[in-house]
């Protein structure tokens, strides 16, 4: 996959798109997501963010 430089306000930064693998299946992040789900289930959604 080619690397694409991110542009902000028309100016290129050194941040890049394209080199990183999908981390969503990493056990650590899955665990953290499940903890966050449990937190929201117990405490509810942020008030101003409810749609």
């Amino acid at each position: 996959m080619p690397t694409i430089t991110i542009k902000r306000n028309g100016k290129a930064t050194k941040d890049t798109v394209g080199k990183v693998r999908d981390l969503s299946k990493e056990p650590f992040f899955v665990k953290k997501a499940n903890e966050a789900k449990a937190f929201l289930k117990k405490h509810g959604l942020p008030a101003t963010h409810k749609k």
Partner: protein
Amino acid sequence: MSLERYNFETERTHTSYEFTSEGRNGIIRKGVNFQLIDPKHEIYNLAFGDFNAQGEIDDLSVSDNKDRDKILATVAATVVDFSENHPTATIIATGSTLARTRLYRMGITRNFENISEIFDVQGYAGGWVPFKKGTDYQAFSVRRKIS
């Protein structure tokens, strides 16, 4: 105000990020992930940690590279990048330890003037409330303001 930070790398969906911390204890690869946990309300969980020698990530290691502020500024930059690509998403962050939660609070507090220009910020302290400096929260939520 532009804070010193590391450059990050991401992928096409702008949900996974990596960057490298460089300090007195060497080079430490960091991973940041925005995980969709509530599709209906478009809520993503923010988590980040260090890659260990096995290539796995945890957030309990103390790398002690003396670059905490630079790391926080980099994570904040990933939040901005993520929200530019997911403008209606809500991001929540809960610390794995009290120390990590304090770290989040410190990062928001130090940059609150800049953050609050772009985001609505809330904290959870017995209920979700607008973020105020000097208050302890169990979790944080940010969402890009509608322009």
